């Protein structure tokens, strides 16, 4: 058995003789940046799934991942990371048993802290991009290919947002409430006015982070209601942001953290955070980054 395996390299077909030097040449050329990487090597992507007590809904989500990611296997090398945000149920065990990577936070950090954990891992382990997909089932894995495809555009964005309010997504069956639409409209207005970023769905957490975004958010990612603020940070850092229409679904389990009194706090906090980001980006007294 062993001798057959080791001898396999000597049984090259005539095609191998021609193609091997060609692929070696192509790899060298790719290293010089002459050929686009997606045509040569598979893009290394990490899917970050922040979870809080999703023991019941996680297996179904992971099944759907498997199904949706299969067509991407030729062009992408995809890992899944479940970030357990201090769950009190068996979320981590369920995820480990399914063979995905698991980062278990010892205490609940909120969505921002959980997402940043995944982005940190992706930035440090050399992933080309990371994708945020919520564990509550709102973000259908079937939309992942269309979001990742945006990175293959001639002028690829650094941050891709799955939007519910543009293009074909506007006709989706599932709609958010009128009050939320007003809030989202306000945040869009604030982002457009102060950081000159025109985004229809700034609260969407269905996103793809390119390499530059990973490096930025490894260092600086908001912890409390992070989505709109992270857009302002990305814009202030000169990152290119693109929206792609996606169909989202109603939450499969759990409840939104933004309800009742927290809605008013959310709007106030996010508005102030965007204004502060704008002020910091234009301030002549910006402090250099430093470790905590």
């Amino acid at each position: 058995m062993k001798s057959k395996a080791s001898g396999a390299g000597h049984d090259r077909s005539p095609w191998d003789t021609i193609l091997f030097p060609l692929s070696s040449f192509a790899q060298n050329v790719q290293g010089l940046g002459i050929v686009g990487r997606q045509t040569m090597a598979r893009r290394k992507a990490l899917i970050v799934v922040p979870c809080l007590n999703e023991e019941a809904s996680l297996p179904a989500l992971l099944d759907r991942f498997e199904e949706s990611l299969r067509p991407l296997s030729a062009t992408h090398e995809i890992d899944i990371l479940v970030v357990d945000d201090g769950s009190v149920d068996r979320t981590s065990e369920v995820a480990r048993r399914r063979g995905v990577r698991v980062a278990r936070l010892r205490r609940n950090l909120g969505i921002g802290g959980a997402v940043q954990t995944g982005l940190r891992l992706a930035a440090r382990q050399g992933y080309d991009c990371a994708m945020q997909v919520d564990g509550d089932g709102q973000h259908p894995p079937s939309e992942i290919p269309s979001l990742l495809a945006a990175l293959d555009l001639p002028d690829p964005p650094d941050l891709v947002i799955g939007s519910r309010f543009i293009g074909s997504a506007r006709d989706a069956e599932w709609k958010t409430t009128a009050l939320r639409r007003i809030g989202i409209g306000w945040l869009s207005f604030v982002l457009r006015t102060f950081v000159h970023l025109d985004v229809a769905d700034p609260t969407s957490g269905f996103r793809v982070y390119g390499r530059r975004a990973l490096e930025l958010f490894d260092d600086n990612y908001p912890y409390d209601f992070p989505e709109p603020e992270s857009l302002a940070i990305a814009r202030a850092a000169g990152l290119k942001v693109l929206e792609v229409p996606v169909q989202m679904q109603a939450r499969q389990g759990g409840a939104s953290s933004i309800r009742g009194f927290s809605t008013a706090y959310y709007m106030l906090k996010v508005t102030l955070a965007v204004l502060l980001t704008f002020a910091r980006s234009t301030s002549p007294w910006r402090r250099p980054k430093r470790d905590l």
Partner: protein
Amino acid sequence: MENSLERYWLFGMICLGYAAAVLLLLLRRRVTLQSSLIYLLLLLALGVGSVFMTVAPGIPAAMGFELPSNFFFTASIGGLAFLYLTALTTISRLELRSITMVQEVALIQEELDRNQAQLRDIQGRLSAASREPG
């Protein structure tokens, strides 16, 4: 002075009780001297200022206060607001550090889990290979 003691003895006892409580917290290391030094100095300044308020009447007058007591209260509130601000910056810094530490622990644990899984895999293969005849 005797009259003052008669009038304020109860208030004085409360102040002494508070000072004893602060001292106890310091001795038990529930409050560190490093983080509470400004607070203790402010308390000392307030205590000294309240006892000797009439010694330097020129200062309140120079600051535009008609009564020394008004100046004293304003200065006290200002001092406490400053202390609160320093406490806020300390709490914010500690909060960020604590979040970073929780994240780092999770990432290290994840790496450890993966390495252990790889090790188990290698050990399994080795034992399978050693069982193979020849």
